[in-house]
C-alpha cells in the first residue's frame, strides 16, 4: 500500500471557556504532511497541538476548514471511518482484554478471518518486541510494555496515517529516549505518514522529518529541526527550540547584505537584509549559548564579563556570565580539555558573526 499524505486547510476550533468566554483552541491552521513523512506538532501546553491532532483523527469536529487524508476529504467522517491509527498518551488499552485481544480488536471489527488475525497479531507483537505476551493483561504490564501494545494495536490494522498524542510522556527519561528511536524506526520501516504531538523539543528534533511549532492555536513556524534551530522566525521559536540568549542591538549602518550593529558595547557585522534595517533601529539577536566563546580576561577583543555561576556537566560546562546589565548563558563543550573558568573570574566574550541570528522586526 502506498503512503498517503495529510492536508489541513484552514482548520479552526472554538471552545466556550468558563472564564474567558469564547476561546480559539486552534485558529486557521493549514499544513501538509508528505506521504511517509513524520511531522511533529510542537508547542507548550495549551497551544492547540492536541486539538489539531484530534481533528485529524476525527475525535473533534473543526468549526471551520477541511481535513484531507490522501485526496479524500474526511472532514465530515467520524473517527471510525477514517482508517487511522491513534496512540494515546495513557495508551488507553482495554483493561478487560488480553494483550492479544487488544491488538486483535481492530481486526475483529474489520471481520478478518481468525487465522489472518492470529498471524497479523503475532507478526506485529514480534515487531514491537512483545512475543509471548499474548495472554497478559494490561494491568500486569510495565509502562513501556503497555506503550508497545498500544503501538502494535494501532499499526496492525494497516492505517493510512499514524497519530501520536504525547505517547512517551508517561515513561521515565531513559526509556523515553529508547522508545522514541524505536517509534521512528518503525514508522520509517512501515512507510506510514505520521503526525506526532509533543512538548518536548528534544524529542521532536530527534525523530521528525519536519516540525511545526504551534503557539496559541496557530502554527508559528514550520521546517526541519535544523532550519528551525538555525533560523528561528520569532523570539518564541528561538526560545522554544533549544536555548538561547536574546540580545538587543542598535543598528549603526546598513550596507548591501550586511548590517553593522552595536551589541553590548561591541561592534558586530552581521549578514542581513539591508532593507530591514534602518540606522538607529533596535533589533533582537538570537545568540545560542554554545556559539559564545569565552576567553581569558586579558584577550584583546570581545566584551568584558564576569562569571556568576558555573555548572559542570561532564561533556560541557554551563556558565552564567554577567555582561553589563545582562546575564548571558554560555555553554562550553569539552571543558576538561579546553579549560574551565571559575566563579567570579573576569572573562571576555567573543560573538562570532556567523553564529548569530537576526530576528525580524523591532524590539520585542
Amino acid at each position, binding site marked *: 500500500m502506498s503512503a498517503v499524505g495529510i492536508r489541513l486547510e484552514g482548520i479552526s476550533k*472554538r*471552545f*466556550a471557556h468558563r472564564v474567558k*468566554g*469564547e476561546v480559539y483552541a486552534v485558529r486557521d491552521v493549514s499544513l501538509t504532511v508528505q506521504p511517509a513523512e513524520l511531522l511533529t506538532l510542537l508547542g507548550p501546553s495549551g497551544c492547540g497541538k492536541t486539538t489539531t491532532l484530534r481533528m485529524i*483523527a*476525527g*475525535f473533534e469536529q473543526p468549526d471551520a476548514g477541511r481535513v484531507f487524508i490522501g485526496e479524500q476529504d474526511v472532514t465530515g467522517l*467520524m*473517527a*471510525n*471511518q477514517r*482508517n*487511522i*491509527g*491513534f496512540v*494515546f*498518551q*495513557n495508551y*488507553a*488499552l*482495554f*483493561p*478487560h482484554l488480553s494483550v492479544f485481544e487488544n491488538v486483535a*480488536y*481492530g481486526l475483529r*471489527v*474489520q471481520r478478518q478471518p481468525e487465522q489472518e488475525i492470529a498471524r497479523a497479531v503475532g507478526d506485529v507483537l514480534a515487531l514491537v518486541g512483545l512475543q509471548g505476551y499474548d495472554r497478559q*493483561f*494490561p*494491568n*500486569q504490564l510495565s509502562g513501556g510494555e503497555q506503550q508497545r501494545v498500544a503501538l502494535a*494495536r*494501532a499499526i496492525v*490494522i494497516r492505517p493510512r496515517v499514524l497519530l501520536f498524542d504525547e505517547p512517551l510522556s508517561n515513561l521515565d527519561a531513559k526509556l523515553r529516549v529508547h522508545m522514541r528511536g524505536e517509534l521512528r524506526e518503525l514508522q520509517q520501516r512501515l512507510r506510514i505518514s505520521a503526525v506526532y504531538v509533543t512538548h518536548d523539543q528534544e524529542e521532536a528534533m530527534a525523530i521528525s522529518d519536519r516540525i511545526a511549532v504551534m503557539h496559541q492555536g496557530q502554527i508559528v513556524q514550520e521546517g526541519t529541526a535544523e532550519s528551525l534551530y538555525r533560523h528561528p522566525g520569532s523570539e518564541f521559536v528561538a526560545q522554544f527550540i533549544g536555548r538561547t540568549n536574546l540580545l538587543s542591538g542598535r543598528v549603526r549602518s546598513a550596507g548591501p547584505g550586511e548590517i553593522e550593529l552595536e551589541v553590548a558595547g561591541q561592534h558586530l557585522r552581521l549578514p542581513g537584509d539591508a532593507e530591514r534595517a534602518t540606522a538607529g533601529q533596535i533589533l533582537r539577536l538570537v545568540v545560542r549559548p554554545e556559539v559564545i566563546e569565552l576567553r581569558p580576561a586579558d584577550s584583546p577583543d570581545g566584551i568584558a564579563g564576569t562569571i556568576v555561576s558555573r555548572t559542570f556537566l561532564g561533556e560541557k560546562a554551563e556558565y552564567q556570565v554577567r555582561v553589563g546589565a545582562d546575564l548571558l548563558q554560555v555553554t562550553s563543550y569539552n571543558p576538561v580539555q579546553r579549560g574551565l573558568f571559575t566563579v567570579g573570574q573576569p572573562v571576555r566574550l567573543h560573538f562570532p558573526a556567523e553564529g548569530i541570528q537576526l530576528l525580524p522586526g523591532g524590539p520585542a
Partner: protein
Amino acid sequence: MTSIAAARTDGWRRTLRDPALFVTVFILWALLALFILFPLAKLLARTFLDGGQITLGNLVAILRDVNHRQAFWNSLLLAALVGLCGTVLGFVYAFAAVRANLSRAWITVLDAASLLPLISPPFTTAIAMIYSFGPRGLITYHLLGIKGFTVYGLHSTLFSETLTYFPIAYLTLKPILAGIDPNVEDMAFSLGSSRWRVFRTVTLPLTVPGLANAFLLLFAASLADFATPLILAGNSFPVLPTQAYLQITGLFDLKGGAVLSFVLLVPALVVYLLQRFWVSRKYYVTITGKVGAQTTIKSLAPWARAPLLGACLLLAGVVLYFYVLLFYASVVVALGANHAWTWRHYQVIFTEGLKAIRDTLVIAGAGMPLGGLYGILLGYLVAKKIFPGRQAMEIVSMINYALPGTIVGIAYLIAFNDPPIVLTGTALIIVACYVFRYSPTGIRATVALLQQIDPSIEEASQGLGAGSGTTFRRITLPLILPAFFAGLGVVFIRSMTAISATIFLVSINWTLITVRILENMTELSLGPAAAFSVLVVVIVFAVIVAISGLLRRFRTPGAVDMTSILGG
C-alpha cells in the same frame, strides 16, 4: 452564531445525527414520564385540585386535624433520632471494623450481623421486639422482672428502626474511614498529637461529610418506614406513612391519603436536595479495592480495642438474637403458648402461601433484568453522552427512589386505576414500581464506574474502526458489568423485602410475600409470618452470594470491587 447557542444546536444536531442515541433518549424519557412524572402529577392533582380548581382546601382540612399534625412532627422527630442514633452506631461499628486492627474473623462476624437487617422483610425486628419487651416479654418480664412495661411507642420504634437501619450508616462510613490514609494520622502523631487529639482534629473532620450523608440516608429511611411503626408505634405515636395507609385502608379516603403523603413528600424532598446539592459536593467516595502497603493503624489505643469490640459484638448479638427468635417462632407451634417443635408452618407457606411465593419470585425475577438494564442504559447515557435535558433526566430518574414508598404506592394507585392507563390488578404495576424505585442504585453505580473509565478507551475503540454500538457492546458493557450486577441485586433484594409502596398495589391476581407476612401478623398466625420471613432471608442471602460470585468472576483484572454497593 454565538458559541453558547452554537453549543446548544450542536447538541441537538449531534443527537439527531446519531439515531440510536435519539431513539434511546426518547424511549427513556417516555418511560420516565409515564412511571415517575405522571403518577406524581396525578397525586398532586388529587391533593390540590378540586373540581378543576386549584385549592389548598384539602391540605388545610388534613392539617387541621391534630392527629395528623402530631403525626407530622412525630415523623420528623423519629427520623431525626433514628438518624442520630443510627449514624453513631454505624460510625462505631465502622470504626471498629476498619481502624481497630481486628482480625478477619471478627470483621466477618460484624459484616454478617450488619447484613441481616438489610436483607430482611419488614416486621422482623418488630415481632421480636414485642416478645422481648412487652409487659410479659422475654427480657423485660422474665429476665429483668419489670412489670407493666409498655412496648408500644416512640422508644421501641426508635430502637427497632435504629437496629434496622444502622447497617446503612455502617456501609456508608466504612469506605470513608478506610479511605483515610493512616499515614495522615501517623503524620499527626509525629507532630506530637495525642490519640484523642488526632481523632478529634484529623479523623473526625475527614469523616464529617460521610456522617452527614449517613444521617440524611437514615433520616429518609425512617421517614419512609411504614412497617415498623405499624406494629410498634401504638396509638400514642402516630407517624405519617402509617397515617396515610390507615386513611386509605381504614377510612377509605383516597384523597386524604394522597394529601397525607404529600405532606410527607416535603421533608423527603428537602432531605434529597440536601444530599444531592450539599453533601455529595463535599466529598468523593472512592470505592477503591487497592490494598497498598500500610502502616499499622495506631489511632486506637490498645486498651480501647477490647471495649470497642465488645460494644460491636453486643450490637451484633442483639441483631442475631432477633433473628434467632424469628427462626424459633417459625418452628414452634405457637410462640408463647405451645413450644412443640413443628414444621407445620413451613408446610403452610409452601402450600397455601405458594401463590405469594410464586408471584413474588416472578415479579422479582422480571424486575431484576429490567431494572439492571434500565440502570446501565440510563447511567451510561447520563454519564457519557451529551444531549439536551441530560441533567434533568438524571434528577427525574432519582425521584421515585428519594420518595417514601407510601407516596409512590398511593401515586401509582391513583394514576393507574382509571383510563387512559389501567394497570391495577396487573403484575406490571408492581414490577414498574420496583424498577423505577430501586434502579437508581444501579444508575449511580454505573455512573461511578464510568467515571473511573478513561474516555480515551472508548475513543481508542472508535479509532480502531468500531461504531458506537460495537464500542458499547464490546468495551463499555463488559467494563460496567459489575454495576449491572449490583443494580440487579439491589432490585431483587428490594423486590423481595419491600412493602410500603406495593401494599397498595397487590390485587386478586398478584400478591407478595411481604404483604402476606403483614396479613399473617394481623391474623396472628405468627408461625407462617415467621416462616415466610425466614424464607425471604434465605432466598435473598442466596441471591446475594450468587451475585457476589458473579461480580468476582466478571471483574476486570485490576478493577474496582463493587460488592459493597449491595448495601445500597
